[in-house]
């Protein structure tokens, strides 16, 4: 069983569109939407939820005003600016518990935090594991880890060949969590200065964690100069550019129809995505263990 995660660094480059098409092309796989913050893959795959789970993570402090003597110690100790005027701001509280333990009046209690929900679903392209993290929640990395663990269990039980992950944007906690232990990262970039800058950082993360990467340059014809710059940079890094996909309004049209691009149409850009999947598959199958 091999795992590929589709990442980008920069948001909006086409990760979910490509991951959605991979879902339609790959045989024997399980899908994971690792963008637990703003999941979109379900819009292309229309999952039918089979299981729903609560994700409890961390704690949030709460001050009992009837016990509070307003000594201000909690405020002084809190490093996250979560206590003002003897009230906890739950959106800033990081659940460390120091205020609760230090409070001389025992006026601060820690409550378990329901941070989100996660689901195991069926789609016409196989099982899918996905989630929705509540807003302002931390521990997105932890939720991603929960999803991937479940995806691996499903893959083992049903003898599936691939786990395909739609990754989050950025380079922080949820990205690191979606990469850890994966066999391959497919990084989707665009030939803009921002795209190039962000590509460097996400490739940096892949290297830092020892995950091999492939690059796909989406909308390459928007700026051919930048596309060449990316190709040269990838050469220097020893990273293969697996595809150059032109800007095509079919990407958007497919999303509007709620379909992966390769289901929406069979020609043009669709063929390039199919060929990209073949390359990803080849890379995954080639890596041993």
């Amino acid at each position, binding site marked *: 069983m091999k795992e590929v995660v589709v990442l980008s660094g920069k948001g909006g480059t086409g990760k979910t569109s490509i991951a959605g098409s991979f879902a339609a092309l790959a045989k024997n796989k399980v899908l994971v939407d690792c963008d637990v*913050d703003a999941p979109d893959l379900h819009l292309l795959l229309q999952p039918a939820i089979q299981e729903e789970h609560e994700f409890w993570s961390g704690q949030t402090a709460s001050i009992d005003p009837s016990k509070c003597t307003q000594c201000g110690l909690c405020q002084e100790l809190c490093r996250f600016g979560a206590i003002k005027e003897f009230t906890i701001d739950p959106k800033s509280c990081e659940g460390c518990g120091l205020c609760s333990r230090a409070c001389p009046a025992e006026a601060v209690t820690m409550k378990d935090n329901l941070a989100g929900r996660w689901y195991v679903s069926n789609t016409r392209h196989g099982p899918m594991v996905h989630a929705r993290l509540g807003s302002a929640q931390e521990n997105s990395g932890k939720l991603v880890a929960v999803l991937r663990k479940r995806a691996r269990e499903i893959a083992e039980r049903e003898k599936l060949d691939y786990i395909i992950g739609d990754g989050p944007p950025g380079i922080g906690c949820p990205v690191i969590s979606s990469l850890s232990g994966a066999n391959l990262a497919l990084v989707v970039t665009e030939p803009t200065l921002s795209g190039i800058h962000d590509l460097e950082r996400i490739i940096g993360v892949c290297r830092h964690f020892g995950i091999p990467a492939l690059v796909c340059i989406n909308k390459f014809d928007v700026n051919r100069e930048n596309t060449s710059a990316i190709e040269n940079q990838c050469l220097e890094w020893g990273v293969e550019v697996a595809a150059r996909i032109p800007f095509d309004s079919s990407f958007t049209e497919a999303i509007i129809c709620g379909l992966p691009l390769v289901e929406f149409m069979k020609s043009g850009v669709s063929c390039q995505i199919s060929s990209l999947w073949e390359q990803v598959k080849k890379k995954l199958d080639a890596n041993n263990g």
Partner: protein
Amino acid sequence: MVSTSLALSLKDRERMQLFDCDVEEPDDHLLLNPVVAGSEAVTIRFPEIDEDKCTSCGKCAEICAYHAIAVIAQQVLVFPNLCHGCGACSYLCPEKAINEKEREIGIVRWGHLDNLRFVDGKLNVGEAMPTPVIRKVKQGAHYNGVSVIDVAPGTSCPVVQSIKGSDFCLLVTEPTPFGLNDLILAVEMVKELGIPSGVIINRAGIDNSQVEAYCREEGLPILLTIPLKGEIARFYSRGITLVEGLPQWKERFIALFEQIEELLYERSGGLER
């Protein structure tokens, strides 16, 4: 693109500051090319155990909410990457055997472009927690004049930390099902924070009806619509922001700002200007 265009459009008539709080992938400097005047490392504290004083009682491991400390067979192990720097372990250690050290997780830079003040932050590659870097970026805000804060995508903790304390939120979306899906999540978040907001539709195409209908339902003003145009995309790809490539847009951003001012004035019952 919106943040930089807004900041550039207003810099001659307002005291403007731009904060790039997308510390995982900060890009505003690429569009702005500011003169960087200085920078400072962002550090986070983590525990260091004084083995002479430590009795391996295990209290620190018990206290730590992030599993950043483990006590195994009389040995105390610290995992700095998991540490949030809360200080609980050192404060509560009965033997006062824990000192705090600092480690670098990112950098904050400040500078200017003419009279536009600029601050950005960058999380080091391999680090998981952007929030301390964001806090440091925002520390640089002098609350005189107008601050534009460029925020990362999503609705998680770092996004909320970036937005907190703002007077108004501009939600930039695109008229696709992905755009609408994410906009709905963002609206939920700003409502929870009690911050008034408005929408900018970017890459607007032939059919914006779904987004427009949603905004109407929610009573969200659509403050600007930027069309999907090859020309704009090409400028952006070269690091040229909208108002630089197409200066006629400057007026629209000024009008956008005036609308926001008007909305905030109305909300405050006409009490503050």
